[in-house]
């Protein structure tokens, strides 16, 4: 009996974990390329869900149109934010000095701006979901059961992550982005337009978050505070190693499974604190996460 519980907990944890990982992906690619933690990451997800809702429900357009349009709008917003705000802030800082404070304030401000804007519309007063893409009919894998929707979310998340990994590893643009994050000055010397790369990455990350929002809407449900899931995305990224695109999948899955096992064998109340304990433990004993390479040394 306990075996079934564990198996089911793991299976469902895999799905939820892939949700965390997908959202964390945007955080990771931004951090990899710009060393910035985007505290508005969750709100980009929320924005994507609401923008998609507008096109799907209000205008009645089909998903095949809505998803690219939403991604495009998010891309525009993300890259605009980088151009208008971050460019200026980063341009001002002196090397060696921490830009963290400015970055946090800027992205926290953005998250409040997004939430405040969405709350002005009465559609956000109630928790909603998007029209279903996949059915919730159950699929039996032995004694474990998952819905078709669950399996689709898992597969799509993994596919997106693999695509992104390939992008960073094998395409010219992707390699240029990696170069700018590892050593911006050298990158400039080789002729890579660092500033434009950064804007590009913010656009991509925003688009990614928005599409993630559309995909995971049935799992997280759509509300202005849906961005709160970013904490779990942070935990997933930390477990995997904040700079590792593939590590993030593992990190997310590990987190999702841990949450369920804690809920089954400790208590449901403890689920809420599990991700924080994990973050603290990992940062204390292995700050680079499972796949982050060398321990993060302070750059002076």
């Amino acid at each position, binding site marked *: *009996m306990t075996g079934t*519980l564990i198996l*089911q*907990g793991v299976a*469902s*944890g895999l799905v*939820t974990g892939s*949700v965390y990982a997908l959202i964390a992906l945007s955080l990771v690619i931004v951090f990899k390329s710009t060393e910035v933690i985007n505290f508005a990451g969750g709100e980009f997800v929320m924005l994507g869900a609401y923008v998609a809702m507008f096109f799907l429900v209000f205008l009645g357009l089909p998903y095949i149109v809505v998803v690219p349009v939403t991604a495009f709008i998010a891309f525009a917003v993300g890259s605009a934010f980088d151009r208008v705000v971050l460019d200026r802030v980063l341009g001002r800082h002196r090397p060696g000095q921490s830009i963290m404070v400015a970055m946090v304030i800027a992205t926290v401000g953005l998250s409040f701006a997004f939430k405040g804007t969405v*709350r002005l519309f*009465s559609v956000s*007063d*109630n*928790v*909603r*979901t998007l029209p*279903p893409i996949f059915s*919730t*009919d*159950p699929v039996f894998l032995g004694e474990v*059961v*998952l*819905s078709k929707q*669950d399996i689709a979310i898992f597969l799509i998340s993994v596919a997106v992550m693999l695509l992104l990994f390939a992008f960073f590893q094998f395409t010219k643009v992707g390699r240029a982005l990696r170069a700018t994050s590892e050593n911006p000055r050298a990158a400039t010397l080789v002729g890579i337009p660092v500033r434009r790369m950064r804007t590009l990455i913010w656009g991509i990350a925003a688009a990614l978050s928005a599409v993630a929002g559309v995909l995971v809407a*049935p*799992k*997280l*449900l759509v*509300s*202005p*505070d849906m961005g*709160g*899931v970013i904490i*779990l995305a942070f935990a997933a990224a930390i477990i995997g190693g904040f700079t590792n695109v593939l590590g993030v999948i593992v990190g997310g899955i590990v987190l*999702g499974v841990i*949450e*369920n*096992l*804690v*809920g*089954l064998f400790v*208590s*449901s*109340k403890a*689920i*809420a604190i599990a991700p924080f304990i994990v973050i603290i433990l990992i940062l204390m004993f292995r700050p680079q996460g499972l796949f982050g390479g060398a321990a993060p040394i302070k750059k002076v």
Partner: protein
Amino acid sequence: MTIFRLTTKAAVIAAAISLATSAQAFDPSAGTGKYKDPGITDKEIVIGLHAPLSGRLKGFGFDALYAAKAWYDMINKRGGIWGRKIRVIVADDKCSPTELVAVQKKFVTVDKVFLLHGGSCTHSAVAAQEYVTRNKIPYVMLNASGDSAVFPPTRYVFGSFGGSQRTVGGTIVDFAVRALKAKRIAYIAHDDNYGASNSAAGAFMAKKHGAKFVVLEKVSRKIVDVTAPVLKVRAARADVLIITTYTGPAALIVKKAHALGLKIPIVAAVQAVPLPGLFAKNVGNPAALKNFYYGSPLNDLTRGPKQKWVIDMYKTAYPGRKPNPFMAYGVPSAQTIVYALMMAGPNPTRESFIDAMSKVSFNTGILAGPIELAEKKRDAHNASIFVRFDGKSHGRMKGVYFNEYRGQK
């Protein structure tokens, strides 16, 4: 001019202004002329009305507050109370304890209101209790459950006008046992004060009926994956699942229960299903609602015929606005205040108002049961109805259920 000199000048001016304009603020309890209490004259009585009007919890307070105001406006149109019009001052308490206390202190010491009316969130309403008791100011909650501020009852604080959380928990178990013949109860609540109160009442009513809790799970309001608690429900072979969480987690739980093959009836509290149609969409699969019920403190479905007059009143007062499901919950407390002011006679004081409140008993035409207050009873409403819902149609279940848990061991 240096900064410091400027600052000093500003400080002196500010001090002078505060002295000049606050001279009469020295004794906030002094009234004007023949009236002992502030906020009352021959022509008007002043009420400080507050609720969350912005932010995440705006939905619980905004429409409810304006419905209460609409009631007051209607009373004014009919001539007021004993010849006095009700003047309402509105403020946003943001459901935050520090903010609510600030709002009330402003009402009392700056606006000089006669009584305080407001609050949609229990934990912020409780913050006011010490201040209003010490300063002997009547405080009537708006639609907050208010459990920890009305149990044990104190003289100046009144609440639970839509039912306390004890009502929610006690009646839902009562229904599960009596109507659904349940003996092994699975109960999922939040790890907040609502969960604490409603589960305590539920446990009491279960014991009273000889049923037992086989599962009691408390989950965070932000929970994303509900697999663990629902698995435990399945493993414990419960014969009913009771959910008293908010609507997001409740929809996820119902979905998960269906996905994991649970076939037992599910009963959800009112806070889980404010908009049944939307809830069904969030669940996504009508098959999951085959055996689903929800509770409500109202006397009918939210848009049922008995509720029409309230909705009409709101729409007349605010043309073009569509009220949310919590709107009607704001009216009973306003009705009670008006009733008590009438009973208190042509020259009410705060104390005579409190005495009149302690004898209140009437039917609101909105709620499932009567409003009843007494010297030692400050929770106003204690009843629920239950509705069967399959995703499309509602079927009102027979009977009105009353909670009996008042803190007994």
